């Protein structure tokens, strides 16, 4: 007795599918590469960015904060790239604030055309800020707060 081919093929296919499903069930749930379920929100570590607004002084003698990135700026015995814009002679053309005139007076009170050696390393006092939370608790209150 000869049966038609199609039902036999379909029956075989159903058997294989059922077996496969059973095997997958026994192997446990699907493992995700990111280590969390697919419907779970995963937060990445935030990247903090440079604050770019002009900063108010928090107290009268505060050295003004830097409102731009200074990552690749060379400040060493040979060159000071900050002065490329902030030196009094370059500032008007570059639209940058000029150094305070106190920075042209050396420790003996002698005024000169070029920045005083004691003021050469800008980032000893002037620093940029990022929008990151404080690493340690800080109870400092700025002037006027």
């Amino acid at each position: 007795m000869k049966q038609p081919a199609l039902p036999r093929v379909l029956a075989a296919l159903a058997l294989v599918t059922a077996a496969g499903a059973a095997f997958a069930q026994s192997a446990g749930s699907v493992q995700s590469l990111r280590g969390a379920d697919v419907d779970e929100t995963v937060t990445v570590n935030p990247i903090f960015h440079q604050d770019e607004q002009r900063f108010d002084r928090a107290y009268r003698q505060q050295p003004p904060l830097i409102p731009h990135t200074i990552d690749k700026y060379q400040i060493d015995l040979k060159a000071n790239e900050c002065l490329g814009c902030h030196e009094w002679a370059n500032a008007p053309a570059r639209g940058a604030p000029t150094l305070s005139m106190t920075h042209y007076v050396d420790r003996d009170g002698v005024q000169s055309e070029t920045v005083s050696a004691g003021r050469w390393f800008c980032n000893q006092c002037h620093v940029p800020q990022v929008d990151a939370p404080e690493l340690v608790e800080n109870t400092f209150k700025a002037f006027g707060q």
Partner: protein
Amino acid sequence: MSDTYKSEQRPGLFRRIWRFIATPSGVFSLGFLLIAGFVAGIMFWGGFHTALEMTNTETFCISCHEMEDNVYAEYQGSVHQNNGSGVRATCPDCHVPKDWGPKIVRKIKASKELYGHFVTKSIWTPEKFEEMRIDLAAHEWERMKSTDSRECRNCHNFEFMDFTVQESRAATSHQQALDEGKTCIDCHQGIAHDLPAGYLERYQQVVEKLANE
């Protein structure tokens, strides 16, 4: 009679070479000579090009200690070596023109660097390099300024620069530079290598020198 007299004398070297070149071949067919010449031409050009490109790699540049210990060391961590997108600009991308003509001119000029390395040893030690640095830098500034920073503009172009995604300070300066017809190197000196003392004054001298030419 004068012909016989001439043939008895051995002609000079250049005359003999010229005769060898000018005499038609009696052995090879024209087709063979044509095809052989064609194949030899491809081989020669391929070889020339491969050799040229071999000298146009970072590996080749830093095979001299002067480059590896000074400028290559300083370039580490600079934005053209290490950045968010992982795209790098290596030595020849900035220091060798891409177009064939200017590239060959630069390559010929660079033979002076070989002379400096092998013969005069002008930048053999870090101290010597430091002494020469401002002159070396001025050469590059002059080259950049005179070609409107051609090598920078292989990748960077004002027309495709979105000022709105730039830091406000950068956007303002770039707009100003565009309006005033400035070129990259006018502001961006020392982006990949250390700057020498008095670099701004020296750059002004370079600009004035080019303006007077």
